[in-house]
């Protein structure tokens, strides 16, 4: 479609000009007399543009773009460094936390152990002391019991002796009395 339109546009003015017997070739594009001027000014303007681009635009633009790339990559590097540093610090912190908790656990368990030891020792000592005291007091009680028994016996014998002496002349000896009492 476009192709035919192009042909149409090209051919129409050409045929028109031909029919009217124009001196120019119809299409201004075909007018050779304008070619030197167009080429001359094209060379001048394009050379100027080329020099401008080559010497002015491209060095500046490329340095700006490079600078930006450098800056961005530097910033990314910095950020990565900081990030790794931060993670290192975090790791350190975790390590310290772990070791501290381990240490504290140790301290707690060791102090528990020493406390238990102390308590056990205390208990044992006290048990021994108590046991000693018990046996001692038992001995004392036993002694006192015996003593009092003897005293009671003696008193009884004395009493019996005194009572018997009031009625009987022949007073039995202590041994006889004690034999009888048992």
């Amino acid at each position: 479609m476009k192709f035919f339109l192009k042909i149409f546009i090209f051919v129409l003015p050409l045929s028109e000009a031909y029919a009217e017997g124009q001196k120019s070739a119809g299409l201004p594009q075909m007018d050779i007399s304008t070619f030197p001027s167009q080429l001359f000014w094209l060379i001048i303007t394009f050379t100027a543009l080329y020099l401008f681009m080559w010497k002015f635009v491209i060095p500046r633009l490329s340095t700006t773009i490079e600078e930006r790339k450098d800056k961005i990559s530097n910033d990314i590097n910095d950020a990565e460094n900081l990030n790794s540093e931060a993670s290192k610090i975090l790791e350190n912190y975790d390590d310290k936390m772990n070791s501290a908790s381990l240490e504290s656990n140790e301290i707690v368990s060791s102090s528990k152990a020493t406390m238990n030891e102390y308590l056990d020792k205390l208990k044992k000592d006290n048990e021994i002391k108590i046991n000693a005291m018990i046996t001692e007091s038992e001995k004392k009680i036993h002694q006192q019991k015996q003593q009092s028994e003897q005293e009671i016996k003696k008193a009884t014998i004395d009493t019996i002796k005194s009572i018997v002496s009031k009625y009987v002349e022949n007073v039995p000896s202590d041994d006889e009395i004690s034999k009888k009492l048992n």
Partner: protein
Amino acid sequence: MAADNPIDPIHQFEISKIAEMQIAGIDISFTNSSLFMVFAIAATMTLFILGLSKRSIIPNRMQMLSELSYNFIANMLRDQVGDQGRAYFPFIFSLFMFIFFCNFIGLIPYTFTVTSHLVVTFAFAGLIFLAVTIIGFMKNGLGYLRIFYPSGIPIFLAPLIVPIEIISYLSKPISLSVRLCANMLAGHSILKIFAGFIVMLGFLGFAPLIFLVVLYALETLIAALQAYIFTILTCIYLNDALHPDH
């Protein structure tokens, strides 16, 4: 008469002298074409002077625009040619900016489109063709002739393939220049024709007006697209010259 016709679609392409000039009998007058060439490079220079006036790490709008165009062409050249193309970057960049601004300035009513003249586009295409051929022989010696005989083709096809390759190689500057010129010529002529219809149809002119708006958008696209195509084809030809093996 064509010149008196107010809606003559070809009138816009006529070259009129502004200042008469001659060197050794050759007419090199400053014409409207020359004026619009100057406008095109002035527009490009303005863009870059404004864009580069306050260079900063965080660009402002104009700097962004100039960096965008720089990166656009630099990436195109890198993708098509690779690192060897760096030496030709100033030319490719200038070429794109020049054609781009010529095409766009030509879209403004009552202006002249420099690139609608075959002699201008052919001057570029011929220069590129000559340069590419010279670069090809300089970089590869006679090995550059391999481009006429692609590898992997059976030898008995050579009598057929080689002339076709030679013809296609020689027609490159013609197709390159005619593509740009014809697109500009046809597009601007159609715009003018439809603009003429608006006037001729009077009240009913709104119908071609709507069409003209759509067409104008299309022509805007074509103006950018043709500058891009011209530049990327130049890159492709350059790549062929630097790497003739593929």
